[in-house]
């Protein structure tokens, strides 16, 4: 529904086609300028990974493959700093404008990136609106100290200092007891955090996500987060802090 409303927005002057080769740039592009999308990476359609999966399903997609992208003759290609690097090099060699963006690991970084990409696409007002809404959500979080929490991601990896999950925990008043290293069920039980945050069980079977449902963990207080909110930092990531503060 939101996608239809956004797509019917008047096109900004000088509209040009944009191809995105990375799940994170896909989401920024769809949120900021869906009418500019020439193609997204196919993971953008996966609801377990992508916040904009519903909109992305109505938009074209392309494999991160130089030949396929060149055929689309995009005016701009958005990519990340990891993955598809050989494709990026080939596209640049053929004179295509490629902009690579970072993966922000805190809310200030996300805000700066939203503004950077919105300027690039000529939709600064939309970017500012997204940033304003983020800041309002963060300001509204209750200021109080909570206990120690461990963000326990798929495969038993804890989110540690410097990660987006750590930023969300701290914004919600929790002390992040994770270190960024991998721990097993027994080590987690030894740590006895006041809260364990895991990803919501996905639709597909995986040992990495089954781990979070080990029967020995039944007694630990738990909150679950949709992985799409944290896979790529975006304006929607503040929802995690909001949920952790409840």
């Amino acid at each position, binding site marked *: 529904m939101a996608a239809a409303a956004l797509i019917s927005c008047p096109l900004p002057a000088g509209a040009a086609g944009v191809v995105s080769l990375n799940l994170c740039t896909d989401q920024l592009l769809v949120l900021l300028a869906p009418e500019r999308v020439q193609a997204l990476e196919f993971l953008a359609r996966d609801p*377990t*990974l992508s916040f904009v999966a519903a909109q992305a399903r109505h938009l074209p997609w392309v494999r991160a493959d130089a030949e396929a992208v060149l055929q689309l003759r995009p005016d701009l290609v958005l990519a990340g700093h990891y993955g598809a690097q050989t494709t990026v090099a080939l596209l640049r060699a053929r004179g295509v404008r490629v902009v690579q963006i970072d993966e922000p690991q805190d809310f200030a970084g996300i805000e700066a990136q939203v503004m950077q990409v919105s300027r690039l696409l000529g939709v600064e007002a939309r970017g500012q609106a997204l940033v304003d809404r983020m800041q309002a959500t963060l300001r509204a979080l209750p200021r109080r100290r909570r206990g120690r929490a461990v963000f326990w991601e*798929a*495969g*038993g990896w804890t989110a540690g200092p410097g990660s987006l999950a750590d930023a969300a925990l701290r914004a919600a008043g929790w002390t992040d007891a994770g270190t960024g*290293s*991998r*721990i*097993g*069920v*027994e*080590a987690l*039980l*030894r740590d006895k955090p006041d809260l364990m945050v895991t990803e919501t069980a*996905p639709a*597909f*079977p*995986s*040992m*990495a*996500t089954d*781990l979070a449902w*080990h*029967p*020995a963990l039944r*007694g630990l207080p738990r909150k679950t987060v949709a992985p799409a909110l944290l896979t790529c930092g975006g304006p929607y990531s503040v929802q995690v802090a909001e949920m952790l503060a409840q």
Partner: protein
Amino acid sequence: MNRASVVLLVVLCGLLGVSLLVGAAGLGVPDWLILWQIRLPRTLLAALVGAGLGLSGAVLQGALRNPLADPGLLGIGGCAALGAVIAFYWGVAAAFAGALPGAAMLGAALGCGMLMAFSGRALSGPSLILAGVALSAMASAFIALALSLAPNPFALAEITFWLMGGLEDRTLAHLALAGPPILLGCALLLRLGRRLDALSLGEATAATLGLPVGRTLMLASVGVTLAVGAGAAVAGGIGFVGLVVPHLLRPVAGQRPGALLAPSMAGGATLLLLADLLARLAPLVLPLGSEPRLGVLTALLGAPFLVRIARQVAP
């Protein structure tokens, strides 16, 4: 029951006790939850999976009269892991209890069948080992293919589990799934002692003694399928236990294949439990981020062994 078995059983019982005292929460008696839900299933699974692998190795070496026969080297373990991978990542395992070990056992059975078909009549010669190498390579390739096609962003990272094995964070549910078929398979294999002794005289001689050779090989295949298949379903592909254990025990238990079965079962359980204890101890004493893979440890132990045995059998 011979002396080697008794000594091994005593050592095994001691290790089972020690194993309950070692884990990420530290050395010593843990609280009840960790003991019952984490260390107990892990300890018992290490012993059971190891017992199945050790006994299967001894039976295969006797039945095929080939000192290099091992469920891992022959690709039976790989085919079992492939069956488990397909069942797990394509949603069959979640559909009904028992589907995971069932699919692994189906994989192991198909592996046994293909092995017989590939190597033809020359079951005891080097062609058997070559067929096993081919089967192993094929199983690994299909495991990687099935995982990369699975609708799951973590599947690629989980290839290491299925190829190298592991017992981290296994649950009582895994024990309930794998325990009964492993025990059933072992019970079947343990009864083959006298037939294997007769087979050691050669298939033709054994047949003149009235031994149903084909039926014996079939029973051995079924037992190996149950023990190795169910083990691979919960522990992934663990190699070399079945190769190393019978070789280590021959000097004490004797050359007769039948006399090697019970000690190999106890020895396999002891070896895998010891390897798993090492895996758990390593991060406590070394600056390691996580445990080394169980299959990595058994391969580090087994590969030099394989070289030694291969040199002995080389013409």
